[in-house]
């Protein structure tokens, strides 16, 4: 028989309890509700730890580690340089085309990486979701944040490229965080929407890489200059601007390479991005109560 002689309890209570413990009310889910921003803020450490975990694990598990972040845009840069420059003769003004392509691919990979990480994050966190409570939005946020880390690493390669080509950044470089922030928020909106869909429809996972690839070619500024669009029919060019990435990527590249900043295109892209963020996050909040039952 196990002897249950319990040790004397230390007379210790958290001094923060003085204000009285917090109250929680658990009720059946309502139909639509506001985003629990205060709660998300309370769980900011979890967001950071999840992002940190994903970076750590990838670094420990893959031989190339963080080099992947640089490898992908560099390879595409090479391909683009051959096809768009040599074959299609795309004009990029004073900027050498490889540099130009890399500076467009960098923000694109930020978006694509954040969207795909966020979209798959919920399904991959099944064990957490069914065992512990926390605002579910921290999972796609944490997953998407990893793409920002990749972006910073790949940006180091951009600096090297710029030095190699003798290109110098301008004051616009100070606006890079703004561009990155807007791209991140747009990606978060799209990613959380896809994440919610992914829980319900598991075959969505297979459609995702294709969707992202198609989106890249539908974003002309990844491989063309914003002005090149003037050769396109007006309606097509207008449609391209409804794609938030068109303006955001043009702006990010201009900021990185010290070119004139396309404020108008960025404004349109950011407005569309904000709508996508709102839609994605609201849909997510609407269905998040069911994740533990559906996953």
């Amino acid at each position, binding site marked *: 028989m196990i002897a249950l002689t319990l040790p004397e309890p230390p007379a210790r209570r958290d001094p923060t309890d003085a204000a009285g413990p917090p109250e929680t009310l*658990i009720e059946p889910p309502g139909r639509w509700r506001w985003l629990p921003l205060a709660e998300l803020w309370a769980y900011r450490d979890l967001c950071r730890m999840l992002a940190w975990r994903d970076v750590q694990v990838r670094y420990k598990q893959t031989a190339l580690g963080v080099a992947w972040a640089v490898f992908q845009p560099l390879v595409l840069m090479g391909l683009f340089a051959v096809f768009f420059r040599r074959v299609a003769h795309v004009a990029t003004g004073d900027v050498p085309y490889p540099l130009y392509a890399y500076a467009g691919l960098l923000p694109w990979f930020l978006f694509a990486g954040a969207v795909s990480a966020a979209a798959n994050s919920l399904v991959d966190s099944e064990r957490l979701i069914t065992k512990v409570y926390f605002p579910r939005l921290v999972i796609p946020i944490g997953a998407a944040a990893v793409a920002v880390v990749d972006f910073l690493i790949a940006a180091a390669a951009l600096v090297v490229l710029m030095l190699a080509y003798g290109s110098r950044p301008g004051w616009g470089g100070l606006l890079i965080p703004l561009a990155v922030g807007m791209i991140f928020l747009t990606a978060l909106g799209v990613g959380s929407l896809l994440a919610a869909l992914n829980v319900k429809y598991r075959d969505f996972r297979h459609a995702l890489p294709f969707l992202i690839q198609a989106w890249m070619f539908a974003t002309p500024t990844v491989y063309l200059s914003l002005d090149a669009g003037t050769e396109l029919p007006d309606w097509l060019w207008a449609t391209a601007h409804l794609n938030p990435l068109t303006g955001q990527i043009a702006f990010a590249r201009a900021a990185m390479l010290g070119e004139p900043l396309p404020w108008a295109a960025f404004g349109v892209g950011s407005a569309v991005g904000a709508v996508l963020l709102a839609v994605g996050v609201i849909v997510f909040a609407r269905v998040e109560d069911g994740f533990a039952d559906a996953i």
Partner: protein
Amino acid sequence: MAAIVVENLSKRYRIARTAERVAYRTLRDDLAALATWPARRLRGRIDRAEDFWALRDVSFEVQPGEVIGLIGRNGAGKSTLLKVVSRITKPTAGRVRLRGRVGSLLEVGAGFHPELTGRENIYLSGVVLGMRRVEIARKFDEIVAFAEVEKFLDVPVKRYSSGMFMRLAFAVMAHLEPEILLVDEVLAVGDAAFQKKCLGKVGELMRSGRSIILVTHAAATAQKLCTRAILLDAGRVTSVGPVRDVLAAYSASALPTELGGNENIRVLAVRAEPVAGESIAVDSGIRLTVDFECRVKARVVDCTLEVSTGDGIVVFHAGTFLTESEPCDEGLYRVTTHVPPHTLNAGDYHVRLIFGQARKILLFGQDSVCRFEVANVPVYGTLTPLPGVLRPNLAWRVEYLGRCG
């Protein structure tokens, strides 16, 4: 003021009643279903989801410092109740009011990642359970000391032994210091010494005014730790009160739900009860009783009980004739037998009933007419049940035969 107030809580799950039950929906299936919907509608073949109520009108209160044992069969709704109270899933109706921070230990090692080191996992798992980073940093040394893993802090936890992993995981959870703690049978981890430490921690939390809901199968654990118990059956609360009363109700609820019969035999009642004590345990002995109506006459009728484990291993198959060697009469009969104490090991058992004519012709038979649970009685300082179907109290003799050679 109550720490937990549960009011008319209900939780419904929808079970798809399609011919082939798919685990997950695919967009392709839904698109296909949408396309063929008018056709199926015309033919009147719309699939209706079936409702399953995991919880139905559950109400109770827990005061600060109380330890509530949640008892019930598998599928009675215990885990669902903990999931609702810990906010993992939302109720369908009713509500829960909580005063204080909630810590739920539904799984040991929630949030752990095998590739990360012990140190990294303490932070990760702590944050997942709802602690702030600064709070973890403050309690870090305490957690490490409790888990006894100082030497392995910078080793990935995938290299840990299962015991070390459990200790570390429990240590993080134990230092969450919530006002309300929800525990799902994770106490049965690690070796005896660590179990004792865990129980000590639970006792400590209890006396510092925390409220605990403990899901348990083990009557012994419930009796040691809990101040009150709640019995759940098919999603409803069927008994609330002192632990021993609820445990007695739990044993009594082991009665069969449907008793069968035919033109030969009609079964009236089958019972499994403890010979001594409140509930069936390894050391209580078990009285098995069968009441039935014999509808045939002038035949030699026998009654046989076959007791099997939950895994389907037949433990014994034994019975008796109703009358010694001569044909019996129609009428009501009661057959009783005793399984001596220290025979069956802890676990779930079910009884199959067979009526025969002189053990040659089957008159009537029914599977699982009665189920019962034998509660564990700790031995050798461990709460974990011993392996084996039987747990006999054997007589041992030790002799010293002298020195070697």
